[in-house]
C-alpha cells in the first residue's frame, strides 16, 4: 500500500456526505465572491501532533518516491529502448565538462596535503613518508569523495535545475503525451553517464593530486620526484584500490538520482526550481558523505577478511 501525498480523501478534509454525482450537486450562490458547494467544509484544525505526523508522512512519501524512481531507473538500465545519443551528450556535459574543475582541485588538494603533513614529517626526518600519506589519503578517501562532492556541486544542481525547468514548462508532460517515458529519456541517460564518468574523473583527481603532491614535495621538502612516486605507489595495496573503484559508482548513483528526483518533483514554478536545485546539492552532498562512512566500514571489513 503506497502513501498518497496530502490527498483530500485521505485527510478527511472533504466531507463524506458530499454529493458524488453532478446531478445531485447543490448550487448555493450566484454572486462572484461566494463560492458554491463548499459551505459544509470545515477548516482542518492545526495541532502539534498533526504537523509532526504530516511532516513524517511527507518524509516517508519522499523516500518512497525516491526509491520508486531508483527502481524504475534500474529497470530502464536493463531494458530497451536506450537513448545512446542522450547518454553521450550527458557524458560530454557531466564528464568532459567537469574535467577542468577536477584537474585544478585535484592538483591543489595533493599539494596542500604535502604542505600540511610535510612540516610534521620534517620534525622526525621522515619527509619521504609524504608520498605514502598523499597516496593513501587520496586513493582511499579524498579522491572519490572530493570528486563526488565537486561533481555534485556542478552536475546534481545542473540536472535538478534542467529537469525542474522542463517540468514547470510542461516539457516533461509533453514528452509523456508523445509516448516517451521521461525516466527512460531523461533520468536513465544522466545516471548512466554519471556512472561511467565519475570513476574516470576520480582517476583524474587521484592522478592530479599525486602530481600536485609531487610538485609540492620537490619544491618545499626537497624530495626527488622518483622517491615520491616510488613511495606513493608502494604504499597502495589492492584493498585501497578496491575502495577507490567501488566508491565512485555509489556516489555517481546518489548524485545523479537525487538530482533527477529533485528536478522531477519541483513544485511551485521557477521559485521551486531554485529550491530544488539547492536541495539537490545539499542532499546529495550529505548523502555522499554518509555513504562514504558506511562504504569505508564495509571496505575495511572486506579488506580485513579477504586480503
Amino acid at each position: 500500500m503506497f502513501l498518497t501525498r496530502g490527498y483530500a480523501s485521505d485527510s478527511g478534509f472533504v466531507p463524506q456526505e458530499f454529493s458524488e454525482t453532478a446531478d445531485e450537486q447543490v448550487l448555493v450562490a450566484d454572486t462572484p465572491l461566494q463560492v458554491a458547494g463548499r459551505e459544509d467544509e470545515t477548516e482542518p484544525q492545526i495541532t502539534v501532533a498533526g504537523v509532526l505526523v504530516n511532516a513524517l508522512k511527507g518524509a516517508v512519501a519522499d523516500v518512497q518516491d525516491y526509491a520508486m524512481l531508483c527502481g524504475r531507473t534500474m529497470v530502464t538500465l536493463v531494458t530497451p529502448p536506450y537513448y545512446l545519443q542522450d547518454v553521450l551528450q550527458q557524458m560530454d556535459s557531466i564528464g568532459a565538462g567537469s574535467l577542468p574543475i577536477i584537474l585544478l582541485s585535484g592538483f591543489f588538494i595533493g599539494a596542500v596535503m604535502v604542505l600540511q603533513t610535510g612540516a610534521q614529517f620534517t620534525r622526525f626526518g621522515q619527509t619521504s613518508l609524504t608520498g605514502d600519506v598523499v597516496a593513501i589519503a587520496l586513493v582511499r578517501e579524498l579522491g572519490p569523495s572530493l570528486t563526488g562532492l565537486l561533481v555534485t556541486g556542478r552536475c546534481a544542481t545542473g540536472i535538478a535545475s534542467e529537469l525542474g525547468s522542463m517540468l514547470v514548462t510542461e516539457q516533461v508532460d509533453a514528452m509523456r503525451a508523445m509516448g516517451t517515458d521521461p525516466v527512460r529519456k531523461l533520468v536513465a541517460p544522466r545516471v548512466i553517464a554519471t556512472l561511467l564518468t565519475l570513476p574516470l574523473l576520480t582517476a583524474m583527481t587521484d592522478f592530479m593530486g599525486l602530481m600536485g603532491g609531487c610538485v609540492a614535495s620537490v619544491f618545499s621538502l626537497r624530495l626527488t620526484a622518483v622517491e615520491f612516486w616510488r613511495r606513493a605507489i608502494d604504499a597502495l595495496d589492492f584493498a585501497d584500490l578496491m575502495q577507490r573503484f567501488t566508491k565512485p559508482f555509489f556516489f555517481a548513483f546518489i548524485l545523479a538520482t537525487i538530482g533527477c528526483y529533485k528536478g522531477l518533483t519541483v513544485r511551485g514554478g521557477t521559485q521551486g526550481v531554485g529550491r530544488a536545485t539547492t536541495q539537490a546539492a545539499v542532499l546529495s552532498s550529505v548523502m555522499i558523505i554518509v555513504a562514504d562512512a558506511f562504504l569505508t566500514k564495509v571496505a575495511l571489513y572486506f579488506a580485513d577478511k579477504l586480503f
Partner: protein
Amino acid sequence: MTSALTSSSDSGPTITFEGVRIGFDGRDILRAVSFQVQERETLVLLGETGMGKTLSLKLAAGLLRPSKGNIQVLGRDVSGMAERDLLAFRRQIGFVFQEGALFDSMTVGENVAYRLHEDRVKGDEVELRVREVLRFVELEHTMDLFPSELSGGMRRRVSIARALINQPSIVLYDSPTAGLDPVTSQTIITLILRLRDVFGVTALLATQRLQDGFALANFRFDAASKRVVRRVSNGNAPGEARMAATRFLVLRDGGVYFEGGQEELVNTKDEYLKRFLV
C-alpha cells in the same frame, strides 16, 4: 498531410468521463465530473482558472489518474491502464499545451519530428512529413530556429504541428489562445477549424475565452475555397453533413455546471453563465 486522419470506426463516444474525481493538497479540484465527447465533435471546456480544465485534458490523455471514476478514450479504459500501455496509447492523441511546451533544447524541426524519431522513421520521410505539417501551420521557414526565437503565437502553432505529426484522431487543446492578441488567436482558431473540418478530428478544447468556442460553433473551414466561412446551421445543412456539433461544458467547483449547445448558453438566465457572455 496527404492521408485522411485515422479515426475509430465505432460511432460511440470517443471520450467518456464517468464520475471523475481528482484533487491535490487536501482539496478536490474535480469531484464528480461526467461527460461524453462524440466522434468528430468539439467539446469546449469553459471555466475560471483553477476549475480543472487543464486537469480534465491531462486526465483524458492519461497524464494523471483520477482517484475515483472512470475515463474511456477510444474505447480504452485510460484511468486503469498501466503507464507502459499508456505511453503507447498516447501516440493516438495529440496534446497542445498551454504555453506550447516545446523542447527548448531542440529546433522547431526536431520538436515536430520528435515522435517520428521515437518511432525510428527513416530520415527522408521524417523531413518530408515535418515539412508537410509545418506548411500546414504556415511555419515551414522556422524549421531550423529554436523555440526561444519564435513569438508566442508561432510557438503555439509549432505545438499544434507537433501534435499533428502522428495524425491523431483526438486532439486536446489546453487554452490555445490564452495570452495571445486577437489576430494571432484568430490564426490559431482557423487552424483548429481546418483540423476539424478537413481531417475530422475529435477535439476537447479548454479555454477561458467564450469567443473561441463561438468561433468554432459558428464558422467552418471550406476546403474548396481554403477559407473560413460562416456555418449555415449547426451541423444540419447538407454540405455540413459530416460535421459534428460544437458543444459547451462549464466547469465550476468540481462539477459540471452547464452542458449544452451554443443557443442554450447564449439564452441562459443563469447569472454565473452570463458572466462568461459579457
